[in-house]
């Protein structure tokens, strides 16, 4: 993958990390409740893990599929998915609820997985991953059918790497935001600075989906 791709992946991760609803606010709440910064960091780890699982699943699926199926098909299906998901986010106003305020680490990771998936965090990596040339196995016109299938697991690797980079960025930004609010800014800042990222996000999904479809079809 090119440097631009990695940067884009990290940038999306940072965007996810900045969203209070994706986890850091929960970590701040836990920290303030227990009056412990350690608690804050401890809560962020399972949250990042859940995010990684959500994003990694989609990314691995995409890159593995691309190694066996024509990339145009994947791009169009992926783009349509993005548009549909973005629209659903815009039109439905579901309020997701965590497993209460005192979940175990496993519940916390599970919740983060659901929240990230519901926000379409993994889907957002689609345009970035699809902009890349497909993994080597997918190009082998001379290779047999069995060869293509066996290439799928290896084809998932770039996807997992992408998810990893994305999540590291997400975790870094979330940690920075959480510590800044916990130590310096105070939760009062939420009243002014909590921009409606969800609504913006939904639009971004739709636009990214359209671009992906158009790029694949032309």
């Amino acid at each position, binding site marked *: 993958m090119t440097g631009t791709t990695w940067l884009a992946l990290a940038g999306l991760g940072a965007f996810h990390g900045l969203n*209070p*609803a994706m986890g850091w*606010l*929960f970590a*701040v*709440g836990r920290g*303030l*409740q227990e*009056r412990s910064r350690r608690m804050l960091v401890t809560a962020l780890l399972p949250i990042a893990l859940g995010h990684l699982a959500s994003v990694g699943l989609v990314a691995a699926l995409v890159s593995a599929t691309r190694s066996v199926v024509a990339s145009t098909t994947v791009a169009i299906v992926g783009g349509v998915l993005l548009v549909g998901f973005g629209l659903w986010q815009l039109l439905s*106003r579901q*309020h*997701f*609820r*965590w*497993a*209460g*305020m*005192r*979940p175990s680490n496993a519940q916390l990771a599970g919740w983060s997985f659901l929240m990230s998936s519901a926000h379409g965090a993994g889907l957002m990596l689609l345009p970035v991953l699809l902009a890349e040339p497909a993994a080597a196995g997918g190009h082998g016109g001379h290779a047999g059918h069995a060869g293509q299938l066996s290439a799928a697991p290896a084809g998932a690797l770039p996807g997992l790497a992408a998810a990893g980079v994305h999540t590291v960025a997400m975790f870094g930004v979330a940690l920075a935001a959480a510590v800044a609010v916990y130590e310096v800014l105070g*939760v*009062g800042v*939420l*009243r*002014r600075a*909590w*921009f*409606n990222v*969800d*609504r913006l996000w939904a639009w971004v999904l739709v636009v990214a989906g359209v671009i992906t479809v158009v790029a694949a079809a032309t």
Partner: protein
Amino acid sequence: MSRWTPDPSFYPSPRDAARGPAEKLAYVAAFDRSAARPDAIAVLDTDPASPAYGRVVGWTDLPNTGDEVHHFGWNACSSALCPAAPHPHVERRYLIVPGLRSSRVHVYDTQPDPRAPRLVKVIGPEELAERAGYSRPHTVHCGPDGIYLSALGGADGAEGPGGIAILDHTSFEVRRAWEADRGPQFLAYDFWWHLNHDVLVTSEWGTPSMIEDGIVGELLLGRKYGHAIHFWDLATRRHVQRVDLGDAYQMALELRPAHDPTKTHGFAGVVINVEDLSASVWLWHRDGDAWAVTKVIDIPAEPADPADLPALLKPFGAVPPLVTDIDLSVDDRHLYVSCWGTGELRQYDVSDPFHPVQTGSVHLGGIVRRTPHPGFPDEPLAGGPQMVEISRDGRRVYVSNSLYGSWDDQFYPDGVGAWLAKLDVDPDAGGLAPDPRFFPRGEEFRGLRVHQTRLQGGDASSDSYCFP
């Protein structure tokens, strides 16, 4: 509908809320006891700089008659900032107004003109019955994942169990009954929570037949009204523990948990002890791994000449204080206790919740005393301080004088009237005094009786906070 930045009336912590701007308007539930005219939401001007200060400046009739509006609440509040279910870009603008007698639930939009709430939806009793299995809706709280609505009765004429229904945050449709496992709970009344501890608390009044035609003497002396508090797991919706106050303590009504989300205590008011007609306030708190209650305030009955008493009380020769509402200031410092029978509002400093210290008292009305408002000394008052609402900064307290139609008639048989007083508080030194400029009453309310007050932008009994 959804905003780009959080609603400015949402506050992460009780401290932030106390620093917010003062309310300029108050909404009051007003009902027609005869059910001949529609009930209404009256709007009061609470801005001291306004020429209409202390007057009714808005009035919206309900669409039907006989609802008996009672308690009501906002569609959204500071709990929208809670990290467990964040959705801070909704607006605090709809009032959810249940009819306690009709089981209809009304949704009023306070925009674009906050002085003229507009009806946007009526949830019929059949929807509440079919989807949640409840009737006689009572308390409304804006929850992190929906609007919570308690109800006293069961569906299709069933007496119970009462419980909590969940309403959708945006469509206001009844989704379902909240409880996954109600354990031994049958009677219902008030509820609130400790959000950060995943704890919900409920109290007990009586079933519809026990209250709708007035208090039933045999049931009261037979100790059949509610006398327990229930603790639930808010996350799993399961009953955890029932704590009995003792069956002499009849009617455990209002629940006021500490606003500080790190705390796990709260106060419950009990209307009457059938052994000596006293009233009491109880503290709930953790005791090891379980919940416990401790009686922290006892208010004795006042002896009286039977000739001055309504038929119901003549045999006892005393006026029961009848603690029918309590309210805790947002800073958790002052607890206000309504003595609707003796006509007194008491203020306690509860900085040490186990040892309240009385810091103030105001007499207004009362079954025997009939104390007038100091601004209008020639008008003896019926009813007493009943529903209490406290401004977020703790400097202003509003009290209205009606309890519940049929019960008003028993304790104040010559008419309860209608009045709403504002008391000014010295939050540092304690103490409170009626504001002589603020006393809407009688004709101002067009012959209707007044119950709960809600302050614009939130008040001490509307919002929950998730950050200390």
